[in-house]
């Protein structure tokens, strides 16, 4: 399990988020929420060791991140970046790279790696895409291949930075379903999402980041009741009860009318 203790993150000298303490428990989908520029992606990259931290501690199963090699980290946490280079390689090759942290020099993929990759592709619903070049796939299909790569990496924690952005609604829902299945398999799934209603509906836990700090962390119910959401985003979040549970939606903030 990955644990952040009073972690301060940022670029260069300027901190973006101060003293964030939280854990990413296995079996749960944790969503990082916050307005643009609040430091969600920065927090994620720092937790993965992709950016240097400015203070505090990052513990992987109780061991400080600074004591782990890049490869050891890669066996514990997978990462789907927000923007990516799309090389013209096949989907299978792409997923195979998920096995990379398990190989020693000279790195040659073994038969069992091919097998794991194929299973992961099928698991993500992209088994038929194995031989297609990545550049010919749609955004939604690519995202499935990336999810398969994260699965093939076989880590306890999976970080995804805005996995639903630029996808059409069906693929957005599919990505959320896959995230839920990953969590049901005992993985800790950590997502950055922009869609408030989707985040409130799908997450087990939400972390509200705003104004350079972790404002609140809790279940969707707690976050909804807390009111931090309305303040941070400058909207009014409401909900209605439907057959499939609470449905959350946002309204423009009602400014209190001045009395004349």
């Amino acid at each position: 399990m990955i644990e952040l203790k009073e972690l301060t993150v940022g670029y260069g000298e300027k901190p973006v988020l101060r003293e964030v303490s939280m854990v990413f428990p296995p079996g749960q989908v944790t969503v990082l929420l916050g307005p643009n520029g609040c430091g969600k992606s920065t927090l994620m990259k720092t937790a993965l060791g992709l950016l240097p931290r400015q203070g505090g501690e990052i513990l992987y199963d109780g061991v400080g991140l600074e004591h782990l090699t890049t490869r050891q980290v890669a066996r514990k946490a997978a990462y789907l970046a927000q923007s990516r280079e799309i090389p013209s390689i096949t989907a299978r090759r792409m997923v195979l790279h998920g096995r990379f942290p398990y190989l020693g020099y000279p790195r040659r993929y073994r038969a069992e790696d091919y097998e794991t990759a194929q299973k992961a592709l099928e698991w993500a619903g992209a088994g038929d895409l194995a031989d297609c070049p990545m550049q010919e796939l749609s955004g939604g299909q690519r995202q499935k291949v990336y999810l398969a790569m994260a699965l093939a990496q076989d880590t306890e924690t999976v970080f995804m930075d805005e996995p639903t952005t630029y996808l059409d609604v069906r693929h957005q829902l599919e990505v959320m379903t896959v995230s839920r299945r990953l969590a049901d398999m005992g993985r800790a799934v950590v997502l950055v999402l922009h869609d408030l209603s989707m985040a409130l509906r799908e997450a087990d836990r939400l972390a509200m980041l705003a104004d350079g700090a972790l404002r609140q962390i809790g279940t969707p119910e707690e976050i909804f009741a807390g009111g931090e959401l309305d303040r941070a985003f400058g909207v009014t979040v409401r909900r209605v009860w439907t057959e499939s549970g609470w449905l959350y939606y946002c309204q423009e903030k009602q400014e209190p009318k001045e009395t004349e």
Partner: protein
Amino acid sequence: MKNWRTSCIPNNKYLRIYAALAALVLAVSLLNLCLGAEKMPLGEVLRALTGGGSGTTAFRIVRYVRLPRLCACLLAGGALAASGAIIQGVLSNALAAPSTIGVNAGAGLAVALCCAIAPTAVKVVPLAAMAGAFLGVMTVLMIARRTGASKITLVLAGVAVSSIFSAGIDAVVTFVPEALNGYSDFRIGGFSGVSMARILPALWPAILSFVASLSLHNEMDVLLLGKEQAQSLGLPAERLRVTLLGLAAVLAGAAVSVCGLVGFVGLIVPHIMRTLVGEESGPLLVSSALGGAALLGGCDLLGRMLFAPYEIPVGIVMSLAGGPFFIWLLQRRGRLHD
């Protein structure tokens, strides 16, 4: 397991492409040995190669003139093209190549300096060239990193570094005019006057460096996914980038030390091969090395034959023949990988 087997099919495709390219290299080699001011039948060439008929004119022409020149061609072409494939992959930049980002110019400056200071130390030249190439590539990498490392910045920085190094070469030649005497056609690239003694010190480092980079082909593929994604897959990205660029510098330096500043091979051959084998680093490296050797061999043959008995330096043929072909390729494909 059924699906696993289907993944082996492309390997056969690669093997076929390698075989075709190797056949091309062989054909170009034999033509290079047979044709020239003195045309020689294939039988006589083969006899000279296997050591028969020593002392005859044919033996001397083949063993002391054409064979060294052919070896230099194949070495330089293969090394430059492989170096270009590595550089383009590591910097994920289609415009990057030894001749465009200051690697060749760096090597050239080092060769010029080396010849000016120690004219007799032929064996040191390749080492100096490799060091110069490494200096060139690291300078560009550092500038690009400090300025934000956008793809176009990198190429612009390379152009600037190239011209600084070129000015350095000119300065050396101005002050010590005889520095590059042993290297006629150095600036445009050429093979006249090459000898086995000059090739061997460059050959071994080039081969070792090629094998080493080939053994890192999976790492290169992972690096192509972008630095952060690569690092999250357990790849020490920064260290690997420097290692691979170092290997590319050794290859380019080896080439420059035998044939001078041949441009273009390192830029166009990887692009041509990408249309054949795709973007996976292993096949791209192997096919680029073979293709580069064949191309430079072919160009040198043309240069020797077109206006025989006069010779045109290979650099001129390369640009005259390669340029239009590359433009044609660009137009046909619309755009190359970017």
